């Protein structure tokens, strides 16, 4: 469903991503890990259309989409969340979720002005779905509050819900657990399981290895913009190069650490 083929990007002569290739199948969950500065977020930005790669191709469902803008990719079923989403102060929680729902008629100015009945029907359907999703992540009672008034962890869940209401085929998560409290983290794991059950592929950039073990079947390890290992999450601590990339050259501190980097 997603093929990342020899993708690379430089920023002002500095290599951010050297050459990365990997693929993701429907309903599969892949983790992208690596120390800070290893190119994880840049890679996510390239796949989601927020950065243009200097080399390589992105193929989505058999169709090359390299360099397409984020909104085009969103229309093709790619959704993403941000590491530190900033929510608007002058829109409610519910409105942010609705902004993610597909409402083709009322998204066009003419349709919204003229086709009143269709617009209203679209909105009613979207509100119902939004309420269900907000309920699922425990934000329903805050639906009419300004989105910016939520806590950092709640804003991340709101970002996830807004991304999910469009029924993506591919979901890209940028450090979904950072700043999220343990109870919300549990909700997050549950929601991701449901999403996968519906056939959505997930790519997660993450530092929290316990979380990666919980939600990912496969891990791609980056260091210095290149892939240094591909393995199951349980094998991460066995790979000499991975341990070195994270902890430097010294005896591995066997697998018990949950937060690294």
């Amino acid at each position, binding site marked *: 469903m997603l093929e990342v083929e020899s993708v690379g990007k430089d920023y002002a002569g500095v290599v951010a991503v050297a050459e990365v290739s990997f693929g993701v199948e429907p309903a599969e969950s892949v983790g992208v890990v690596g120390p800070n500065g290893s190119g994880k977020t840049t890679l996510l930005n390239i796949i989601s259309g927020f950065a243009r790669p200097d080399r390589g191709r992105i193929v989505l469902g058999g169709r090359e989409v390299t360099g397409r803008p*984020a909104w085009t990719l969103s229309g093709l079923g790619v959704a993403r969340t941000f590491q530190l989403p*900033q929510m608007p102060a*002058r829109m409610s929680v519910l409105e942010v979720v609705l902004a993610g729902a597909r*409402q083709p008629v009322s*998204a066009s100015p003419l349709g*919204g*002005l003229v086709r009143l009945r269709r617009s209203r029907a679209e909105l009613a359907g979207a509100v119902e779905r939004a309420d269900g999703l907000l309920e699922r992540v425990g934000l329903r009672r805050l639906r009419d509050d300004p989105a910016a008034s939520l806590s950092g962890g709640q804003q991340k869940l709101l970002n996830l819900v*807004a991304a999910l209401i469009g029924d993506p085929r591919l979901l890209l998560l940028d450090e979904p657990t950072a700043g999220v409290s343990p109870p919300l983290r549990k909700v997050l794991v549950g929601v991701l399981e449901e999403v996968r059950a519906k056939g959505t592929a997930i790519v997660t950039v993450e530092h929290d290895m316990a979380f990666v073990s919980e939600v990912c079947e496969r891990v791609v390890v980056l260091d210095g913009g290149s892939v240094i290992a591909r393995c199951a999450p349980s094998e991460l601590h066995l790979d000499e190069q991975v341990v070195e990339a994270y902890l430097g050259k010294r005896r591995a501190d066997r697998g018990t650490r949950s937060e690294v980097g």
Partner: protein
Amino acid sequence: MFNYILDLLVLASIFAVVAVGLNLQAGVSGLPNFGIVLFFGIGAYGAGLATKASLPWTVGLLGAVLVATAAALLLGRLSGSLPGTYWGIATLAIAEAVRVILFNQDSVFGGAQGIGGVSLPFASLPERTRLILCLLVMIAILAVCLAISQRLIGTQFGRALRLQREQPELAASLGHDLIGVRTAILIISGAMAAAAGVFYAHYIAYTGTSELEMATTITVWTMVVVGGIGNSYGVVLGALLIQTLYSTSRFLGEALNLSADRTASLRIMLIGFALFGFLMLKNDGLLPERLRKIRA
């Protein structure tokens, strides 16, 4: 006196239409257009040029809307490469450049003289009836623009505009074409301001560059800020208040025994104070934008 009040209300509704348009850009979409007068001027010159070519006013209106659309396409494209404030500076520069060209180009645009003899609407009727009819027409146009504005803000298109105003990346990630929605709202609001410009030129029977000065842009901005940026009804209230301040400052000038020149400067000063005062003390205006509650 009654005619004077009618005149004030006609002018207030003309500028209220421009203010509703500016609010769709600056308030709803976060596009700080410091050259909104460009669209107004396109309308005024559309009326002037149609008069000069002995064409009906509808041709002037149609031409003005087409040119305004072209300008909106250009500014929309520009919003993709220039972030926020830089875009605002570019709009200011473009509007000024156009004004200077119009001011210096004699053969087509009439240069500093402008274009006189733009047909007065309802010219054959007695003055009071004429003013009342002008006011009714203008209120109808304002009502249509206000309804379009109010309706659009609440649609998915409006949500895309309001989300990209504060969080463009989030909006793009949720599938909203940033350049597309900005260009669309610039076309809609630009057409409103251009229509107001057409009507204005007919109302004062003249097209010239004096209304295309920066001062007009600042006056319309003041209407938006005082009324409540982001709130369509607020900016109409702001337009009424600021136009009243503008028109009645004449009496203040008379009371203070000021010359016409000084009275004109006094007006601009008063508007400047109003803008500054509100920015400092109540920058969300008299009727602030509120969160939209969604029923169902």
